[in-house]
């Protein structure tokens, strides 16, 4: 029982970070049609901002300012660069965003060096939680790092907030409609590009949240963006390009797979790729992908 519970919890914690990065990726792909390889770099930028601001002014200041900063960075990137690639091929989009990711990585390396920046957790997030005190079905002493639990809570709350925004607001209705048929929205007078710019900003905010809460766990170094981008991109493809529920489902699947193979290192290293191959062979559009899209 204890083993099972802890593996599930660890699985959730691993999924949490993939989920946040994959959500941003798939949100941007679903609306703008852009395969954004710079998304990992945005996450990394979020983590660096978080370390620097947190060291200087404390974590609570970082908590407020990093998402705002990344929102601004996102808007500038979309207006200044990405929008010129909407009509171009996916290959061009991948090249330009991949290039951008390299530039961001190198700039960070120049400023802060190639080594890991220590990210001190705030005092309220340090230590462990004695789970057996809250969950009577656990036997004996069962503890879990507090920060990892916080990451799980934050990431699922972010997912919930995004779903509420999309499902129950006027803005969300427009974005959902735009994801399905942006041309028809234009025929109905809606300037969808303006909304999609904001969506890009929201994607960057989610990356900021991932950086803030994921940074203390992943280490903050200039290769971080790429390290997380590849599995997150796989999450998006397996979930179905442009499908938000698909991204959530696929990240849970990957998280659980990684957690439950932890005892077998050789399998753990390849398990998500193996899963991806099997799923995509059986279902080329991904778990919840739309028919005909990137199939």
């Amino acid at each position, binding site marked *: 029982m204890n083993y099972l519970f802890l593996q599930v919890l660890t699985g959730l914690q691993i999924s949490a970070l993939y989920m946040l990065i994959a959500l941003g990726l798939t949100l941007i792909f679903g609306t703008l049609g852009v395969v954004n390889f710079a998304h990992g770099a945005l996450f990394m930028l979020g983590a660096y901002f978080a370390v620097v601001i947190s060291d200087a002014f404390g974590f609570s200041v970082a908590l407020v300012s990093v998402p705002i900063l990344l929102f601004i960075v996102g808007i500038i990137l979309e207006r200044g660069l990405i929008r010129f690639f909407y009509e171009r091929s996916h290959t061009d989009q991948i090249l330009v965003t991949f290039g951008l990711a390299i530039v961001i990585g190198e700039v960070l390396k120049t400023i802060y060096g190639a080594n890991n920046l220590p990210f001190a957790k705030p005092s309220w997030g340090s230590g462990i939680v004695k789970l057996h005190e809250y969950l009577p079905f656990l036997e004996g002493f069962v503890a879990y790092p507090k920060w990892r639990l916080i990451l799980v809570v934050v990431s699922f709350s972010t997912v919930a907030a995004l779903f509420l925004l999309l499902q129950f607001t*006027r803005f969300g*209705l*427009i974005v*959902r*409609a735009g994801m*399905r*048929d942006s*041309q*028809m*929205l*234009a*025929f*109905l*007078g*809606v*300037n*969808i590009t303006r909304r999609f710019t904001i969506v890009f900003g929201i994607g960057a905010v989610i990356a900021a949240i991932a950086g803030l809460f994921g940074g203390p766990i992943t280490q903050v170094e200039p290769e971080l963006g790429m390290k997380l981008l590849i599995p997150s991109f796989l999450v998006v493809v397996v979930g179905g390009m442009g499908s938000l529920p698909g991204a959530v489902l696929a990240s849970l699947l990957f998280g659980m797979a990684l957690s439950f193979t932890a005892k077998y290192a050789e399998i753990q290293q390849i398990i998500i790729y193996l899963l991806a191959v099997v799923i995509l062979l059986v279902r080329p559009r991904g778990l919840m992908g739309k028919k005909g899209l990137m199939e």
Partner: protein
Amino acid sequence: MSMSDNKSFFSVKNIHAYYGESYIVQGVSFDVAEGEIVALLGRNGAGKTTTLKTLARALDPKLRSGEIYLGGVALHKMKAHEAAQAGVQLVPEDRRIIPGLTVEENLIIAQVAPNKGWEIDRIYEHFPRLAERRKQDATSMSGGEQQMLAVARALAREVKLLLLDEPYEGLAPIIVHEIEAILQEVKKLGITTIIVEQNAVAALKLADSAIILDTGEVAFRGTAKEVLDNKELREEYLAI
């Protein structure tokens, strides 16, 4: 700037439109009077739908030259969403009801941008079937109901020019009658309309006048009756 007298309320001047390098609309010109209903006819591949999409200012086909005026306003300088705000409402081929949205959401989305037409309550009064299904996923409705919604969605906006692309396509004959009845009602509203339809007879029943396109050019412009009475014209261009 062209004057917008009644006879050239909507004016198309020598438009040329391309899909990539394919030259589809090859210098089409015509005028439509305010309140007039025009059937835009022609064989498959004559450029009817492409013309209609060009008039609605779709990004694709690309309008390379020519001018389009609606009530004196230059549509050819506009993007699709600007043309829609200027009063052009396209009811596209395949209806393009937005999947994943309810009937009501499909109507709400039509009123996000200015200018509003009918209030949603008024739409429900005229289309009680849509009222019954307001909370239903719109694409789960039958083809006829979706066509009804597509027309209603256009009415939810201020319409100065209604562009109907194949409104009867893929519908059973009995449903075609139902949509015909709706369009006859819309006709009473006095909205200037261009209707593209494979079913030329059905379109001509509704229309005051007709334009026949042939390989991207206007081959005939006259009254609906002239087309119905002219056997040669029908055989050459419409195969009816």
